[in-house]
Structures are given as structure tokens and as C-alpha cells.
């Protein structure tokens, strides 16, 4: 095993451990476990970052070109943003969502073929890492908004139907879930916008055109409009709560399709093959 896989699998195992601790906190009602889980995640995110550092050095460029790297980078962004969000909201239950999701992404990454490829020259532009970073951080933020949205709907359902099952005790208040939704939206939307803009500039340097209506671009634009609609609704009409939660969920489903579905189903210049050939 080389240093790269050691770091990668260390992060994978650590995300699994953190997930276990968060779930013990939630199910066993042991708040200590959640705190441990948080520190484990901090270690994980550092090791994981180191693995990207090594990869960057080996590949001689931004190491997010294969599905393996992409999923792994998504997981890293997710954990990083969760930890940042946690600084402000202290929501263990979000950790119980983010850590297992990061673990699953890592598992997906581990199962897809891994090779460190010499980068295609077109990926060597400085705009490529900028584009990638914005896009993935945006995705991760919206993933957190999705989690908060699902929790909001569950909690809202229980409060309305007056039937409280075990999970009710674990969920934070509707207001704070809504604040997470808003925070994620107001952070994620600029990130996504910058991701698209930097992508367009980069496309111009590589293909000589800012926008070529490649499927990924089209779907990203649709998703962008969706989130723009939500942000607009929040700021002008005062959308919030359930409606905002539903929007965040739908938005993320579109995002997932843009991120994975397009690559796997529709093809285009964003496919991993196009990068590595």
C-alpha cells in the first residue's frame, strides 16, 4: 500500500467511526459520543486533505478527474462544510447525516477504479481547480441543506399529526433547521454561481467558447435557476419552513442528477472519460 491509499482508507475508516459515534449519540442519547465524533471528523478531514495534497503532487495538477477522485473530493467538501456549519449551529443530528453520507461517498469512491493519471493538458489551467472547488463546495452545502430539509419535513409532519416517535426527541427546532436551510442557501448559491462562471471562463480558454450547452452545463443552469428561485422567494415573499425545505430537497435531487446522472447517462465534455483520454 502506498501513502496515497493509506491516507484515503484512513479517511474512509475515520468517517465510518465518526458516523458510529454520531449514531450512538443519537440513538443511545449519549452527547459525549457526538463530541468525540466531531473531533474524529476533524482528524479525518485533515488526513483526507493530505491525501489530496499527495495526489496533487503525483498527478501534477488538480486531482479531481476520475469518478473515484470526484466522489472522494465531494466527501471531503461535505465534511469540511459540516464542521464549519457546526461552529455556528452545533447540531449533532446534522453530523449524523453528514458523516454517514461522507462515508458512503468514500465507499463509492473506493469501489470505482482508481488511477493517478497524468493530467490532460487542458486541465492544467489555473481556472480548473477554481471551477472544481467552487462547484464541489456548492454541492456539499446544498447536500447539507437537503439533510436539514428532510429533517424539517419529518419534524413538521410529527408536529402536525401530533404523533411523536423516537426520532422526534433527536431533532432540533423547526426554526433552527430553517436557519440551516437559509445559511446553506446563502452560502451555497454564490459558490455555485462562481462555480458556473469560473467554468465558463475556463471553457473559453480551452474550447474557445464560454458556453456550449453541453448536458452538464444545461442541467447545472436548470439547478441554478431552481436555487435562484428559492433564494428569491425567501428574500421577497418570505418563503420559509416547509416550502423552503421542499425546494432544498428538489434542488438537491436536480444537483445530484447534474453531478452524477449526466455523467453516467448523458455524456458530454464533462465526462470522466473525456478528461482521461
Amino acid at each position, binding site marked *: 500500500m502506498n501513502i496515497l491509499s493509506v491516507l484515503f482508507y484512513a479517511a474512509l475508516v475515520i468517517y465510518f467511526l465518526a458516523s458510529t459515534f454520531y449514531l450512538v449519540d443519537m440513538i443511545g442519547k449519549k452527547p459525549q459520543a457526538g463530541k468525540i465524533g466531531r473531533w474524529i471528523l476533524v482528524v479525518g478531514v485533515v488526513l483526507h486533505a493530505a491525501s489530496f495534497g499527495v495526489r496533487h503532487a503525483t498527478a501534477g495538477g488538480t486531482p479531481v478527474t476520475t469518478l473515484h477522485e470526484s466522489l472522494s473530493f465531494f466527501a471531503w467538501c461535505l465534511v469540511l462544510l459540516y464542521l464549519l456549519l457546526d461552529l455556528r449551529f452545533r447540531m449533532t443530528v446534522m453530523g449524523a447525516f453528514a458523516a454517514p453520507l461522507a462515508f458512503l461517498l468514500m465507499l463509492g469512491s473506493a469501489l470505482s477504479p482508481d488511477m493517478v493519471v497524468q493530467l490532460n493538458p487542458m486541465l492544467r489551467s489555473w481556472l480548473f481547480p477554481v471551477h472544481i472547488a467552487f462547484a464541489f463546495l456548492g454541492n456539499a452545502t446544498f447536500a447539507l441543506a437537503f439533510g436539514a430539509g428532510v429533517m424539517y419535513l419529518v419534524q413538521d409532519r410529527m408536529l*402536525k399529526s*401530533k404523533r411523536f416517535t423516537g426520532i422526534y426527541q433527536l431533532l432540533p*427546532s*423547526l*426554526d433552527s433547521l430553517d436557519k440551516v436551510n437559509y445559511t446553506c442557501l446563502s452560502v451555497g448559491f454564490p459558490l455555485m454561481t462562481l462555480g458556473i462562471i469560473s467554468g465558463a471562463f475556463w471553457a473559453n480558454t480551452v474550447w474557445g467558447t464560454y458556453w456550449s450547452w453541453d448536458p452538464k452545463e444545461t442541467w447545472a443552469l436548470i439547478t441554478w435557476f431552481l436555487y435562484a428561485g428559492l433564494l428569491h422567494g425567501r428574500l421577497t*415573499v418570505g418563503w420559509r*419552513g416547509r416550502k423552503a425545505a421542499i425546494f432544498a430537497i428538489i434542488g438537491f435531487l436536480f444537483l445530484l442528477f447534474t453531478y452524477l446522472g449526466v455523467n453516467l447517462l448523458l455524456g458530454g465534455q464533462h465526462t470522466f472519460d473525456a478528461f482521461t483520454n
Partner: protein
Amino acid sequence: MDIVVVGLSHKTAPVEIREKVAFAPTEMEAPSQQMMALPAISEGVIVSTCNRVELYAASRNIEAAIIELKNFMSEYHKIPSDILNEHLYEYEGEAAIRHVLRVASSLDSMVIGEPQILGQIKTAYGYATEFKTAGVILNRFLHKAFSVAKRVRTETAIASSAVSVSFAAVELARKIFDTLEDKTVMLIGAGEMCELAAKHFVNNGVARVMVTNRTFARAEKLAAEFEGGIPVSFENFREQLHRVDIVLSSTGAPDYVLEAKKVKEVIKSRRHKPMFMIDIAVPRDIDPLAGKIDGVYLYDVDDLQGVVQANLKEREKEAAKAEKIIDGEIVQFQKWMSSLQVKPTIVALRRQLDEVRKVEVEKTLSNLNGLGKKEQKAIEAMANAIVNKILHHPTNILKQAQNGSDGDLYIDAVRTLFDLPENTDAQQQIAEPLDDQ
């Protein structure tokens, strides 16, 4: 020495009996002293609350103690003993320990997990220290009970959920709003339960209280009870609703005072900020259809009762965990109790001194080089003699104290002065043959 409990509670006696046997908190001295005058009672504590009256005692003669305590209760309160005895229960030894630990942990309460009982036992213990009726055993025992109650409270969720309607309302509000500090409550009508709930909300930080009533003077009067309370005329209260986050309604009106349509308008003018509405009135004040509106959480009196019932069930589940904690603590306390016996104490004391003797003799001998066998023997004999002489008198006192009333005091003092271990290690060590004898 054993622990004995005689008493009655809401489980065995109706309120007519309980109120007769209650000891008034202002006059605890007389009963305390009368109880201590009973021949079989070495130590005693009287616990008296509206739901239970119990006597805790330490005694060397369990059977006599139980009879004396029962007679004391009936004589002191002038209730024929055949009537009183029907309601009294008695526990001794392990059962008595378990009972008190369960009571202190609020497992035996009418509402499991309610917090008052612990304070009430602490008060009772306060009287016992004031009138010097608690000795070594009950002192230790009640402190044990307090620490067990604390463990149960922190290690189980027994007291974590609300079991009264007004607390349940506050708890639900916390599931909707992340803070109550900037929220406004409006009381519609003057139902007692709503008033109580409003007070709970204020205690939990709610910023403003508005009060409306068909009779404006009553609204003013009730509003004055809250700091900064604002009276609102009944004709205008709907115009104020958009500022209100929590509505507590309990008018005697035969029809709805708040239509779903109006609530919808209010929500819209609040920019969809959620509203929590509690309708305790029967017939109901708020159109139940309002509860279907996005962002409106409407609870009627049955809904709140349902929450309370569910929470009670949850507490019962947690009680099982608490019983396990208590099981462990009983074993520990019994270890201490059994360490209070004379014989093991004497053995432990001798062992402790022998240990010192052995170490010191070895030290001395290794410092004095070139001593003959004879001289070594002499030094050892001297050390032995010192230990035996020192032990002679305390051992006799302990043996005599066994039969006296303050035997435990001496035993506990010896154990403290010589730092003798009190757990099973001590018993096990005693069981081991002392290797240098």
C-alpha cells in the same frame, strides 16, 4: 444494625388518611424526639409530604422497631392502629434500602420522575441533622440516596420530558422556535390553565405577553400580573395577531373566536413565520382547520393530554434503567453496612497495624548491619508487643460497643481514623490468612 422503613404513600392510603398522618413542617422537633425515645430505634428520619409519610430508622432489633414505629404513628396522630395499619407498609434490610433509593429517585412518585420528592427528603434530612436524630448509618444512607437520585437524573431520561399540560406546551414550543426570548404570547380569555401555561412561557424567557378578554377590565387585570403585560380589547385582538408567536386560547365562547381564514391571513402578514396555537377551550375557540395551514401548529386540550401520556410512557421505560442503577448502588451500600461489624473491623485494624510493623521492622533491620539472630528476634518481639499493647484497649472498647447504642459510631471512627478500607476488598483481605502470623 439494619435499616427499617415504616410508612404510607399515595399508593396505599387515600388522601383522608395521608392528611391525618402528615407531620407539620413547623413542629418537627416533638415527633423527632419521641421517635428517638423508642427503645429499639437508634437513628431516625421523618419524611412527610402530601403524597407520603415515612419513617426511616436504623435499629438492632428489626421486629421491635417496626412495632414501635407503627405504634408511634398511631399514637402521635391519634388514629386507631387497626385502621392505620391497613395502609402502612414496612421494609427492612435490603428492601428498605431499595425503597428509599427508589423514593428519592422519584420512581415511586405519583408522576414518575417529578423532581420535588428529592428536595422534600433533603428537607427531612435537614430536620434530622437539626434535632440530631440521624447517626452514622442514616447520614451515610441519605447521602447515598441523594447521590443515587442525581445519578438517575443525569444518566436516564426519566425527567427529560414534560408531564404536565403547561410544561408540554412549552416543550412543544421549543420544537418549533429555536429561542423563546424574542417571542410574544397572547392569552385569549382567562382560563386558569392558559394562565399557568403563560407563566411557564414567561419563566422560559418569552419576551411579551398580550391579554385579551371580552371584558376589557379583566384583560387589564390579568395583564398586570405579567411584567410588561399588554391588555388588548377583544374587538381588536385579531389585528394584533400578526405580532404573536404563541396563542393560548380558553374563552367560554360557544363558537370559534378565530376562523381558519383569519389565521391564514395572519400567517401571510407574518411572512410565514410559524405560529404555535394552543386551544384549551371546550367547545374549541380556534377552527381546527387552521391547523392544516402551513406554519400553524394547533393543539387542543386532547392533543396536549396525548403528549403528556406519551411522555409518561417514555418515563416508565427510563425507570427500568434507573432500577438497574439502584441495584448496583444497593450492593455498594450493603458492603459499607457490613463493614460496620465489629469483628471485621478488628481484623482490618490489626492487619493495618501489622502492615506498619512489618515495614518498619524490615527497614530497621536492613539499616542495622551485623545483628545476630537473637537481636533480630528481640526487635521483632518488641514491635509485636507494641502493636498488641496499642490494640488491646481499642479492641476491648469495640467489643463492648457492639452491644451499646453508639457502636457504629466507634466502628466508623476507627475505620476513619485508621483509614480502613470499607468495600469488599477489606472483607476479602480479611478472609485471606495473614501471612505473617
